[in-house]
């Protein structure tokens, strides 16, 4: 049968590292406070590079890794909540910069769930069209949206990008074994960033986008309940027991949330790789960055079963269980 395979993975984080101690000069916080509540020690912050710049680096790496020419790419989807602009889409910028003249390009906006939605969208489009090759990237410069004096949110976020190159192949094993997506729009106000406001007079001057706000308790409750539920539902669709999952590549929101999800799923923490210590929360970029790292380090191997699960703004959840 015809299905889709992950041919290559890649990631890029900007070189500038901001430690917890550096943040103590901007706000009333401490390294111990941040580490114990979030698991974060450092984050990489862009200095001059925008979201498309990070994505271009990942896209270029994917093409080099696979020896595929830009003109062979049929589709590029970028998941981001921090696009360069409302228009053009970040994907269109990357398409142009990498010379992928034959690729259709668009962004998906689903915050920290965005990568799973983009990944499944690309996979399903490849399966249902004549297209052969797709690039899916999660890319964020969240530092554009952070109020660096709000200690409740500023300590959490970082910048980066990660992605995969997907190709249609003849195989006996499907890539996705089961998936589950859900949106909780009634909880939309629990995570907000980049809000715009219509004018109440004419002519209205341009206003800045609003920074991140988050309702901590509600978001914690949401993540610790709905993410295990999403993973369990995807496993049910896949008709597998969770014990058969080799690695849970979760959105890197908070190490304490990941620990609670592992506990609720009754799965050992060793199956939940984390890199939030180094990068903080990079929204849609966090899962592909982690996946690329795990592949690079040999933690994730061919033939293993991986649950990729994103959750966050929307609010939303998305899980796809794949055979890598």
């Amino acid at each position, binding site marked *: 049968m015809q299905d889709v395979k992950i041919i290559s993975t890649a990631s890029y984080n900007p070189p500038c590292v901001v430690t917890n101690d550096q943040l103590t000069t901007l706000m009333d916080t401490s390294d111990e406070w941040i580490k*114990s*509540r979030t698991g974060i020690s450092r984050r990489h912050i862009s200095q001059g590079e925008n979201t498309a710049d990070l994505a271009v680096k990942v896209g270029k790496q994917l093409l080099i890794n696979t020896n595929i020419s830009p003109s062979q790419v049929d589709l590029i989807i970028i998941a981001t909540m921090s696009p360069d602009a409302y228009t053009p889409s970040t994907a269109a910028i990357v398409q142009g910069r990498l010379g992928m003249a034959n690729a259709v390009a668009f962004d998906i906006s689903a915050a920290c769930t965005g990568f799973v939605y983009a990944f499944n969208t690309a996979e399903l489009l490849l399966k249902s069209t004549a297209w052969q090759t797709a690039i899916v990237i999660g890319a964020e410069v969240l530092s554009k949206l952070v109020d660096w004096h709000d200690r409740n949110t500023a300590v959490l976020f970082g910048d980066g990008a990660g992605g995969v190159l997907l190709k249609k192949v003849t195989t006996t094993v499907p890539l996705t074994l089961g998936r589950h997506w859900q949106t909780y729009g009634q909880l939309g106000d629990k995570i907000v960033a980049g809000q715009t406001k219509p004018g109440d007079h004419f002519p209205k001057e341009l206003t800045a986008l609003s920074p991140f706000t988050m309702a*901590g*308790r509600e978001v*914690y*409750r949401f993540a*610790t*309940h709905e993410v295990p539920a999403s993973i369990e539902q995807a496993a049910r669709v896949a008709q597998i027991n969770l014990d058969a999952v080799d690695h849970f590549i979760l959105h890197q929101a*908070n190490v*304490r949330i990941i620990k*609670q999800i592992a506990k609720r799923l009754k799965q050992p923490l060793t199956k939940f790789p984390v890199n939030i210590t180094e990068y903080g929360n990079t929204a849609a970029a966090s899962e592909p960055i982690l996946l690329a790292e795990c592949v690079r380090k040999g933690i994730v191997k061919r033939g293993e079963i991986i649950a990729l699960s994103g959750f966050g703004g929307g609010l939303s959840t998305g899980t796809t269980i794949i055979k890598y």
Partner: protein
Amino acid sequence: MTKEEIFDTVKNITVDELDVDADKVTMDAKIKDDLDADSLDVFEIMNELEDKFDIELDADEGIQTVGDVVDFVQKQLDEK
């Protein structure tokens, strides 16, 4: 449900979540100061109580002691 029954449940969950000695979990014990919990520990205790009693504990403002938690749960149960 009696206050004692609620306290027993709160105590069991607190001991489990915070990994503290059961003797330390008294009605007067301050959750953050005496039991060394942080805000996320409190979130998790509330999560467990919500699941156990099928109630919603929306805010944690004003909760200082284990007794405050017991009262909060009792109030929500009464309103159910």
